[in-house]
């Protein structure tokens, strides 16, 4: 009944007499991994040495800063007294800036959820795996789609008076429009801009808006979330 295997699972310690199966080599590769590229170095010691040097540099920098800078500690928590302005940790200040413009459901739940979902699905979109430049083909159609998206976005943000989102969006949009008019064979930097795929533009827009919002929330917002100039000394 049982089909006899054509190998022996050896139990003896004599490797010649009883070879043990360690691995099967099949003709098809199961992993989606390409062959190795370029020359290779032994991890020990080359990688470990670099990693330990990196670790040491990092610890030295951290210790130096920790000796000079003190972690903030304010008054004992008082549920009856809201400080003015009440600010979240700096990495949530972009979100808090959004909360200033949009209702909590939109700014606090929908936008972050969409961002996380977008990040998760990035690698599963097989469109344009090769990183085709946005302006490589269908230039007129791509320009139409881009311009209508930009106009819709600008109108939406203007309705909510979300100027600190609008300004960086316009900046990135302007750069994208600028890249449309670039001719092939320009300077390396221009050539770089001209050949970016759409995913690059979306991520750059996202990063620019996040950085601007975080900076505005950290340095340019004072009592009642009103606009202040950091050099006037309202903040910190």
């Amino acid at each position: 009944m049982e089909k006899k295997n054509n190998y022996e699972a050896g139990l003896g310690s004599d490797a010649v007499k009883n070879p043990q199966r360690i691995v099967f080599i099949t003709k098809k590769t199961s992993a989606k991994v390409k062959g190795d590229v370029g020359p290779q170095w032994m991890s020990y010691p080359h990688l470990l040495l670099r990693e330990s040097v990196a670790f040491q540099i990092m610890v030295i920098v951290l210790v130096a800063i920790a000796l000079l800078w003190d972690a903030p500690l304010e008054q004992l928590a008082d549920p009856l007294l809201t400080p003015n302005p009440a600010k979240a940790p700096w990495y949530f200040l972009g979100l808090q800036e959004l909360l200033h413009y949009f209702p909590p459901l939109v700014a606090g739940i929908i936008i972050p959820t969409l961002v996380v979902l977008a990040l998760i699905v990035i690698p599963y979109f097989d469109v344009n795996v090769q990183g085709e430049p946005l302006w490589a083909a269908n230039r007129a159609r791509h320009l139409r789609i881009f311009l209508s998206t930009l106009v819709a976005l600008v109108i939406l943000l203007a309705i909510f008076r979300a100027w600190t989102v609008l300004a960086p969006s316009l900046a990135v949009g302007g750069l994208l429009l600028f890249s449309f008019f670039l001719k092939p064979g320009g300077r390396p930097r221009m050539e770089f801009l001209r050949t970016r795929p759409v995913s690059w533009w979306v991520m750059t827009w996202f990063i620019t808006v996040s950085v601007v919002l975080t900076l505005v929330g950290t340095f340019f917002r004072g009592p009642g979330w009103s606009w202040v100039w950091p050099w006037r000394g309202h903040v910190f």
Partner: protein
Amino acid sequence: MATTSLDHALERLRSTRVWKSIFRRDPAHTNRTRSLAIFGNFFLHALPAKVRQQSLRVRATYYLGSATFFLFAVLTITGILLMLYYHPAVPQAYRDMKDLRFVVSNGVFLRNLHRLAAQAMVVAVFWHMFHVFYRGGYRPPREFNWVVGVGLLLITLFLSYTGYLLPWDQLAFWAITVGTNIISAMPALGKPIRFLLLGGNLVGENALLRFYVLHCVILPLVAVVLIGVHFWRVQKDGGLSVQQKVEEEEGGKEE
């Protein structure tokens, strides 16, 4: 003279039975024993025995992933030390902060280091993610490891956020109040989730204890597991991704 005697002493140490029982290999002078040094070591066996020359260059990674992991290690060590002087109770938690500053030897230094490393880890995680994106490191076959990375980003943010409440000062209290009120804006599920997270309707004793347990036990455990998967998958997916341009050049040469 001194070096030779040191070498001699090391040689003697390596030939002892105890040393051999621990490392089970000859000195790492050959490629075989250097490989054994990696995959014969529990702590290193997630690393590859060989790495590409391209991925060893600083510009390939800027050591951002490594830096994130190092910061996590620093945070674990300083965090455990800080736990020894911390009571998750109102208002004792705040008094402990004062004690760390004025009473405990080097307490303020450890707290500074922990806070600083926490901020740096948030920066490092984001930077690492953007770097991987721009280098195309999320492309197949690495798509699942990118998702694990997104999970680690969320865990890092949540770790930082739960830690923010623990000093129980004004900054902490109001940041958490505003943050948890955002959750209650979620339709239907928001209010129950907030109640569960805070252990009540207000940010109080229960909330402090829950955030403490999340910050010190639950989230670090999840983070360690995900970090393990993340590192392991880097190897299983064929090592660090090499920049597209270089790959094309190399491929062109081969053809």
